[in-house]
């Protein structure tokens, strides 16, 4: 990664005699490497095109349809791209971003719509946000008025969020305690307490009147998001303006959209989420383009794309050309699996996979990063204990290479047979795959922490900082982008993991969307796997391909998020 420049520097210093030989070998090596790269990329692209062809059923369209779209969409957009590449580089990059940002916005909006329709309704969301704001306020107030009480602050830091979110709920336990794995009954635990303290979250529901869902979303999603992006604008400008302006514009436009949406048959909540995710990042980007006053031409590119598609569709319909009848369409994304290939959809597995990834993130990230910090910063590196730590680290590396089906068995033994959870539920799937990627998270976090130069740490110690302060304020901020990238890439692997899911009994066919983390769920890779063994050939070619493409897009979004986050933190 970092050794490139030194190579270039020493090559010219070498004696002339060896130079001709090493150049030949070097050229051959370069060609071989280039060949390997091209081969790899071509094979992967070929596979993707093959799957995409099945998923979109391109063969079903008339040649005339292709001709129409070639002239309305392909020619104008390629022409523009060519012009940008040759004449106007700045406009080219504007075109690239101005097309990409709305696309990502739409994908994110899809995720948000799923979250707010299946997981949490706007009222619960408001309660959650409100409780967290209260917790944040209490913590910062404590920090301000009692800055010296370190231990107390620790307590406040942990207890406040728990109390505001959960209060002191009524506890009622009636459960036989058994030894894990063998299942011998030890004793029965049985007690119950009354609810002592309601949580802030519950207090909110005591209010007799709560605003309509879309108004809540406007306040708790649109406004904060616009404020966050507004800070970006303000940071870019010298005059610190843009925050309130963006919030005002976004809230106004989105509110208007929310009132128009229901008239054309969309839900107000859905309209809010989609317009917010589309509008706010796009406006932020537009402000930058307008202020820099260059590359305006690039803004025409997305317009040409959308316009070309529209004109093409109108022309093709009026000329009577058959359009392709893709397996991967809107109804595929929004309906449940079915025995009829045409009706088959992927919504429950999609939601299931998202829930599973949430569990994975919440379980593997804290444990993995914590372990990495301990191993890199605290663990002894000499003496007998040091050798033990070395032994541990080697074995974490080994664990990263253990086949995933073994983790599936481990999850089955541990969570289903040991703890006694039901098989095939979200939490079991998430924890099992969380175990699977834990070694990867630890190793990549360790690498990121190792990459922080020791001079930084020593400088911090030299100024009298304690080890905790050094880790908190020097090491972690520096290592964070690396940790995040490694973790999200591991998540990408996790979402496609199939074998452990089959071991812990994630069912082939689940038509209901899971209600929570303890509900039975379908998962995308398991669903794809079960389509593969369906009777009707349409499942094995078309529907399965559509499922694969959906999974790939979700994966790309996750990896894209990793890249964006990394770039953001590296710049700061």
């Amino acid at each position, binding site marked *: 990664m970092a050794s490139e420049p030194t190579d270039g520097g020493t090559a010219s210093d070498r004696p002339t005699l060896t130079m001709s030989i090493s150049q030949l070998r070097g050229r051959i090596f370069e060609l071989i490497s280039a060949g390997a790269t091209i081969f790899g990329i071509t094979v992967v692209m070929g596979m993707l095109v093959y799957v995409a062809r099945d998923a979109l059923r391109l063969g079903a369209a008339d040649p005339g349809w292709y001709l129409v779209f070639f002239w309305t969409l392909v020619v104008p957009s390629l022409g523009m791209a060519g012009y940008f590449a040759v004449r106007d580089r700045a406009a080219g990059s504007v075109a690239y971003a101005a097309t990409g940002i709305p696309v990502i916005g739409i994908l994110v909006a899809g995720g948000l719509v799923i979250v707010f329709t299946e997981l949490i309704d706007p009222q619960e969301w408001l309660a959650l946000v409100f409780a967290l704001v209260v917790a944040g306020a209490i913590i910062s107030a404590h920090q301000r008025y009692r800055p010296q009480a370190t231990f107390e602050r620790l307590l406040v830091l942990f207890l406040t969020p728990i109390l505001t979110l959960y209060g002191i709920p009524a506890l009622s336990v009636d459960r036989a305690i058994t030894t894990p794995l063998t299942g011998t009954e030890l004793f029965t635990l049985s007690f119950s307490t009354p609810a002592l303290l309601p949580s802030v979250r519950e207090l909110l529901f005591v209010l007799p009147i709560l*605003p309509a869902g879309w108004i809540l979303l406007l306040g708790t999603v649109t406004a904060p998001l616009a404020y966050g992006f507004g800070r970006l604008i303000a940071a870019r400008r010298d005059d610190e303006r843009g925050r309130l302006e963006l*919030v005002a514009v976004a809230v106004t436009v989105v509110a208007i959209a929310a009132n128009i949406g229901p008239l054309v048959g969309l839900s107000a909540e859905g309209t809010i989420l989609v317009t917010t995710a589309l509008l706010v990042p796009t406006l932020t980007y537009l402000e930058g383009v307008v202020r820099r006053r260059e590359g305006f031409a690039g803004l025409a590119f997305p317009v040409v794309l959308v316009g070309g598609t529209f004109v093409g569709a109108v022309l093709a319909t009026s000329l009577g050309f058959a359009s392709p009848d893709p397996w991967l369409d809107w109804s595929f994304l929004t309906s*449940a699996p079915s025995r009829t290939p045409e009706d088959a959809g992927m*919504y429950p597995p999609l939601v299931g996979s998202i829930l599973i990834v949430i569990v994975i993130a919440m379980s593997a990230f804290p444990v993995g990063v914590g372990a990495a910090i301990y191993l890199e910063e605290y663990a002894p590196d000499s003496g007998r204990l040091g050798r033990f730590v070395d032994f541990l680290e080697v074995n974490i590396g080994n664990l990263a290479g253990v086949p995933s089906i073994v983790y599936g068995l481990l999850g089955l033994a541990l969570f289903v047979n040991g703890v006694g959870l039901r098989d095939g539920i979200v939490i079991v799937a998430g924890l099992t795959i969380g175990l699977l990627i834990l070694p990867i998270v630890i190793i990549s976090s360790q690498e990121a922490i190792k990459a922080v130069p020791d001079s930084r740490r020593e400088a911090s110690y030299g100024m009298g900082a304690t080890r905790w302060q050094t880790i908190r304020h020097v090491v972690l901020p520096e290592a964070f982008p690396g940790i995040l990238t490694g973790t999200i890439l591991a998540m990408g692997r996790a979402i496609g993991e199939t074998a452990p899911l089959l071991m812990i009994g994630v069912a082939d066919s689940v038509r*209901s*969307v899971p209600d929570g983390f303890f509900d*039975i769920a379908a998962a995308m890779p398991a669903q794809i796997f079960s389509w593969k063994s369906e009777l009707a050939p349409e499942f094995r070619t078309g529907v399965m391909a559509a499922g694969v493409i959906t999974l790939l897009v979700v994966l790309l979004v996750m990896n894209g998020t990793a890249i964006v986050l990394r770039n953001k933190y590296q710049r700061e």
Partner: protein
Amino acid sequence: MADQNSEVVSGATRRKFLTVAGSTGALALAGCTESSSDDDDSGSDDGSSSDGGSTNGGDSLSGVVEITGSSTVFPVSDTMAENFMDEHPDVNVTVDSTGSGGGFDNHFCPGQSDLNGASRPISDQETEQCTSNDVQPVEFEIAQDALTMAVNNDNDWVDCMTFDEMSQIWREDGVENWSDIRDEFPDEPFELYGPADTSGTYDWFNANVIGEEYGHTTNHEPTEEDDLIVQGIRDNVAGMGYFGYAYYSSNEEEVKALDVRASEDDPCGSPGLDTAKEGTYPMARPLFIYANEEQLQRDEFYEFMRFYLEEAEKDLVSEIGYVPSNADMVEENLQKLDEAAGR
């Protein structure tokens, strides 16, 4: 010092944020129109929209019904699940294809699943395992399958085989070359593709065609996925394999199905729904589902079972590729169900 500075800056922005959030919140409250007290579960009306007018509006059934078991019975159970959920969207019927034996051992007998499909009767050992876990299996015969023996499309040397010939091929330490069966067959080694030993199809074939006294060959590619069997046969001229009729009926052009006869004296019977129903196809076999008796007390499971057993008479079963139950079987099944559920 730098630290303190940043603290102040972040404090200031946080305060500003609170102001903004507060004022938008106040605005939102001012524009509030709707008193909301809908605490009832609104997440239940998911993508599985019920098309057609068969929606029972005020239906109170809800819960989860878990089905495991044979991959042969899977299409039937899955269709039943889909149709039942069209009428009762709050009941989540999940179907997993685990193989008959795999379903009994790992899911049904430990009490994890409510219903297990099986392409052979439950074994004594499995009954024992179930009862030791307080699970009483209740057997229902729901359909008939014509187990299909298939070869490659380019295989022009064989059309009909006897049980004895198949037994020689599929038994443990059996013959290795086609020419060992009949002299006119080519001298090519068999490429065998069949189900895994967790499968009821495997057990049935072993018990009824190979013969109890022999073991099933381990020299085949075992899989729970019928499409892999078909793929293997399709790609190997010397290939041979067996699977349920449903898979053959939706992929007839991919492989060639063999006629079979029990012995040299019998006429050859070709696989099909009619021949299986008439009894002229010797490899016809019953398909079963096993319900957990105790769980039948649950309304949603009882109703689902009723639905399943009644619908098993209809065309949807023959569309999948099995022989549906006849009226007598349905009546007998329903009687058995009510007896087991105590209704």
